[in-house]
């Protein structure tokens, strides 16, 4: 159970059976009156949002959310399949639930899958992922027209800007939070 004084941005609550995350939070208190806690909440299943003002006497259920380590197996017809390596249990996430993480989902990548009462909701992947460059224009020494950067395509199909010296077949490290190139990785 949470009290109103526990409310803050990022807190996850269970409201009418669904998990919600507080996306905006503001404490207001007129005069010497009751404190009010104005929240914007986002449904973690369907993404719908609403605003509500709570009072200090209100209490809330915690959303029973758990993260489980699972391995990415394959994508088929817009569904992403993950497997628990201990139990061999498999779950599917939609493209919406996977979001930008899809750009970095390599086969066998280990990810944290977020569950709400046995229902898979979302994913978090490692901050850094090493990936192979699948397509790149060859580097012409002294080629200043394109500047220092050039776009390449990685093995997942993700397009990224990299320094001009990176070539097809190279392995690079990507920051999955920003989607940006970090360094070239030597095997």
């Amino acid at each position, binding site marked *: 159970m949470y009290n109103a*004084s526990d409310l803050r941005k990022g807190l996850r609550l269970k409201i009418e059976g669904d998990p919600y995350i507080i996306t905006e939070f*503001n*404490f*207001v*208190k*007129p*005069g*010497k*009156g*009751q*404190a*009010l806690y104005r929240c914007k909440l986002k449904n973690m299943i369907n993404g719908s949002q609403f605003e509500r*003002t709570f*009072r*200090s*006497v209100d209490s809330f259920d915690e959303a029973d959310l758990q993260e489980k380590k699972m391995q990415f197996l394959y994508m088929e017809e817009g569904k992403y399949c993950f497997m628990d390596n201990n139990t061999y249990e498999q779950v599917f996430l939609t493209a919406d639930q996977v979001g930008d993480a899809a750009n970095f989902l390599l086969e066998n990548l280990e990810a944290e899958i977020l569950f709400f009462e046995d229902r898979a909701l979302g994913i978090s992947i490692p901050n850094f992922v090493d990936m192979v460059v699948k397509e790149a224009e060859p580097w012409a020494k002294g080629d200043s027209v394109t500047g220092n950067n050039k776009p390449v395509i990685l093995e997942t199909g993700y397009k990224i800007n990299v320094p001009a010296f990176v070539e097809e077949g190279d392995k690079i490290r990507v920051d999955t939070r920003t989607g940006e190139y970090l360094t070239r990785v030597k095997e």
Partner: protein
Amino acid sequence: MTAAVWKLAGKKASLRRRQAIVAAIRDFFYARDFLEVETPNRIPAPAPEVYVDPFSSGTWFLHPSPEVCMKRLLAAGYERLFQICKCYREGERGRRHLPEFTLLEWYRAGEDYTALMADCENLIADTAQRLALGRCFVYQGQAIDLEPPWERITVDEAFRRYTGMTAEDVLAADRFEEILVEEVEPHLGFGRPTFLCDYPLPLASLARRKNDHSRVAERFELYVCGIELANGFSELTDPAEQRRRFQEAIAERNWLGKAPSPMPESFLDDLSRMKEAAGIALGLDRLVMVLTDAAVIDQVVAFTPEML
């Protein structure tokens, strides 16, 4: 440089302006023959309020406002008093709230709340002048003209005008704060500051009733651009009535399961000797926000609790 050091270093200009405002306030009261006092921050019994939670300090409390001691000075015959001090209220943190904040509180013996409204008009105009803001300035894109008189509107008029409901109905439905914050406050103090006056009796625990038959008390709040800056009232000087209101507050706190609040007996003893007076608390941090165009209270203090 760490993020915290960088944050602190970036507040130098803001803290300078804060100092100028505090200096202007002191000059204003010195020029009007007010006595500046420092009363204890740690006290055995603050005035019991349903929705103000003091921090306990041993078996005593950190004061949520200096009113108890300042009124005892009034009762002892002091006529014009002011204090700038830290006050402490548990659980209050938001864009305009800090659990440890600075209040400017002043009292005038032999006067009522209208004298305090005039003080507000003069004090804030003088302070703005000292900061070279002039009579008109802009807060968060909204122009404010300080030329007196400022708007005076009763709580009842404001609810009727902006919500179509009466304050009494809203109070009976236990939705006063909610409707005030969502539908009334966004209209208060735009163009010029607003005094929201004459609160329903249940919302003015320490204020004097307007007259014997009235259902409102002589309490007002000052608003600038929707921000509540100050709370003033004609003081209740009847110890029996004050005790009864405190008992109600204590009972309601118990009913809500809040920490018990002891009866401030020495204050009630002295209250019987207190003459008619008026007193006001102004949120100094918020005044600095308004006069320095700061959107959040964090910008006008060196440290927030999160930085400690």
